[in-house]
């Protein structure tokens, strides 16, 4: 089955890394939602996304910022975007997405892209993963999406 992506946006992931960094780079997972006045079910996809991207590790009830995570919150805005882009390029789902788009003149209709990339997922997971692929790809200036034409395209 295709891998799924958590339904969370990168801005929140970066915010989580910053808060973690401010607290010395590690924190008890349990208390953080309370501290941030967030529901645990809203924080969970954000921590999952951060973990998938290799920005933090979770073990023994503690989350810990990684070197990649530190990179994503250092330097200029462009350098931070670049650090996210580098991580995206290591994820199989983005490798597959780029391969698909490269073969089709760098752009595809959203529906055929979803079919090719995520056909073996149930609709609910397929929709939310597509949302994350577009959102994360846009954040890192890796993918673009035109809502007028419903087309996804590869950025330079």
């Amino acid at each position, binding site marked *: 089955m295709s891998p799924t992506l958590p339904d969370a946006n990168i801005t929140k992931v970066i*915010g989580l890394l910053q808060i973690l960094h401010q607290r010395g780079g590690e924190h008890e997972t349990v208390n953080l939602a309370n501290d941030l*006045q967030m529901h645990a079910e809203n924080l969970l996809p954000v921590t999952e996304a951060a973990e998938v991207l290799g920005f933090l590790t979770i073990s023994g009830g503690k989350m810990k910022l990684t070197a990649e995570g530190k990179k994503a919150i250092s330097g200029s805005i462009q350098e931070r975007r670049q650090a996210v882009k580098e991580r995206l390029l290591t994820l199989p789902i983005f490798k597959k997405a780029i391969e698909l788009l490269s073969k089709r003149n760098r752009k595809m209709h959203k529906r055929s892209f979803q079919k090719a990339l995520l056909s073996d997922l149930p609709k609910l997971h397929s929709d939310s993963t597509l949302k994350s692929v577009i959102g994360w790809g*846009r954040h890192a*200036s890796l993918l*673009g999406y*035109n809502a007028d034409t419903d087309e996804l395209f590869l950025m330079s």
Partner: protein
Amino acid sequence: MSFLEVRNVSKTFEEEGKKFTVLGDISFSVERDEFLAIVGPSGSGKTVLLRIISGIEKATSGTVLFEDQPIGISNPQIANVFQNFALLPWLTVQDNVELGLYAQKLPPEKRKSTAQKYIRIVGLEGVENAYPRELSGGTKQRVGIARALAVEPALLCMDEPFSSLDNLTAASLREELLLLWQDKSLPPDSIVMVTHNIEEAVYMADRVIVLSHPPARIVAQLKISLPRPRDTKSQEFINDVDKVYSLMT
């Protein structure tokens, strides 16, 4: 010469024959390259004060001077960022950012390239042709910031810019805004930010002005000289936050 000077500004609204004085007698100045935060209890007229500074609203008495000149209705040196982003839903990100540039009567190509420059700087490449409905709150506010910066203002006025965002998104955007402000090759020189969030004021600003209940007067001004990035867990930071709290209550 002051960069910005607010001199004896007061504001009284009249409603059904009754008068409400929101701002008493407010005087302060803002230096070039300064980040000033204004805090105060709700209803203390923070937003009205900011609107008077940016020329959106007229003071009942007193003046606001920008480099010794009274500000008028149109102030190309001053741009605004709003709590609710104030984007036009039927326009793309690119068009929303260009919006602020129409007043400058630039040729269309220049308008386009200037907008693109600030879209890149704020990190919005990839969403240029998105509509606001496709964007998260954080990205909407980035568009609001790009639109304000595109007019290359000397002063940026921000009214509760992060208070409609969740805590994680707000943390992310505060950092980005500080990066933009600290980059001396970019506008703006100075920022005036209104907020009800004391930690946010102490985390970001060089100086915090505390307003009283209406009719608002300045209770105190506190200089925050902690080095950036500020350590919110440090005793010095906590002390400054406590100081502002005690001044407000």
